[in-house]
């Protein structure tokens, strides 16, 4: 799955370089320039890609890290604006 995600990110980055739209003056729905519309789609696809990534390719080691914690030193000092109650 890791390689599928790497491939998908690479494709998205290549699709981001849309030289074919450079001077395209056409409009979508009469108000959104096509070049802008295209990049809005890229943003939406990015969100979809990251949704698939965290759902299907979340590394187990990430979650394992949560169990090993640095012990926070015990200290309680009162300073101006700091309350202990």
């Amino acid at each position, binding site marked *: 799955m890791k390689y599928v995600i790497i491939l998908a*990110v690479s494709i*998205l*980055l290549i699709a*981001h*370089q*849309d*030289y074919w*739209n*450079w*001077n*395209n*003056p056409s*409009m979508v*729905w*009469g*108000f*959104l*320039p096509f*070049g*802008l519309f295209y*990049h*809005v789609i*890229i*943003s*939406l696809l*990015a*969100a979809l*890609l*990251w*949704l698939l*990534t*965290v759902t299907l390719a*979340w590394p187990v*080691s*990430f*979650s394992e*890290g*949560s169990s*090993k*914690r*640095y*012990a*926070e*030193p015990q*200290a*309680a*000092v*009162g*300073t101006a*604006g*700091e*309350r*202990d109650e």
Partner: protein
Amino acid sequence: MNEPLLNPGQIRLLVILIYMLILLAMGVLASRLFRGTKQDFLLASHSIGPVLLLLSLFGTTMTAFALVGSTGEAYRKGIGIYGLMASASGIVHSLCFFLIGIKLWKFGRRHGHLTQIQYFRDRLDSPLIGFLLFPFLVGLTIPYLLVGVIGGGAVIQGMTSGAFPAWFPVLDGNGQATPAHGALPEWLGSGLICLVVVSYVFIGGMRGTAWANGFQTLVFVILGVVTFVLLAFKLGGEADLLASMRAVTERVDVKYLTREGIPPTYFLSYLLIPLSAAMFPHLFQHWLTARSAETFKLAVVCHPLFILVVWLPCVMLGIWATTLELPPSVAANQNQILPYLVASQLSPLLAGLLTAGILAAIMSSLDSQFLCLGSIFTNDVVDRFLGRNRLSDRSIVWITRGFVVLIVGVTYWISLSKHPSIFSLGVWSFSGFAGLFPVVFAALYWQRLTEAGAISSIMATAGSWLILFRASNWGANKEFVVTLPGSEWPFHPVVPIFACSVFALLVTTWLTKPPGQSVLNRYFD
């Protein structure tokens, strides 16, 4: 007829002041939960959940650059700005959260790091790297801070136009009032922003900052959408929204509807800019506040959508502004485009509320940046010189606060000089941070990386960044590009900066002895 109690500029100012009072109250409230430890002041004791992490990460990365800067740059160059920064950041920022942020969170949690310098010092077993990174990180963050401070001043000036004509008269050569007539001058607006942010950071620490960020992100996203809809109606002049947007877009010159003014190689080189997110010190600190690795999931997925919601309206407003006949002083200063649109087209009360939304975006980045620099100073400089644990947590918290006040003062002082566009200044700051990306990436994923390799990469980045930034007249030359020898293809200066960093890192690492196994065992399974 009775004269109104307050003029429109004063009404807008009043709304802004009320909003700032709310933020201060939030800082006071957060301070009531303060546990008295430096972990709590700097990292909110790793207690931040997914929604607040998403809002605070997004609020931190969206600055005056995203609102005031993007509108001004779209006014100058058209729709290409969205592809340059927004859609690229949607892919690359989340990639950085996923590949860099979660791993750094994991190591920070395991080894008790409070700053990214502590991570590098420990990972590379190098006390020297901290002393090298500290001045460079501060030096790169100051232009980023300036974006917020200058942007805040510009917005407040634009919004308080006509508020106090007797106190701040600004007339043109013919004795006619300019848009800045009677407005709070930029130095005063910037000062007000600095004062409010430093106050709630001072009082509330990271918890206050995260709360204020979360609240402000909601404010600026909601009010941003409202601003867009209202301005679309006003500029289009039709009865329904779609017809209004069509009407105003029809009047836009075709060069703003395409990427005519942006060379493709320049566009390509901008893909490196969002890599800067991997090395923002303030973002690192926010990553460490997360309760668990799962907390990151929402931020990774929603970040591209939030960028879309903020940048798309701003870019549309920027190109629509090209259809208006703007006063020469506004047209010449692209930082004033958004404030002018809001102040000139909407009612004072509404404009005041929307200004609060714009200022929310600005302040939600400044607070994290100020706090983070204070944190780096106390942990990586003071602690190192005086010896670990010689200072009480109480002293550390106060030293952090003192350094924050110092940095705010220095930033404010620099902001008083003549400054370039927010967009240009922001991109220069990002370019330097992007040059440091190879160091953090290699530290996390390449066991062979050596102390000398990382140090030479940092020095190569610092050197090339300084040379090029100076060559651009400290960002004043907005058209500054580099070209490959023998070609006419323009690239953004981030390309040679990044190339120098990678080259120095690889060559020096291969020429020096591999790191010891005991260090690697701590960071590689």
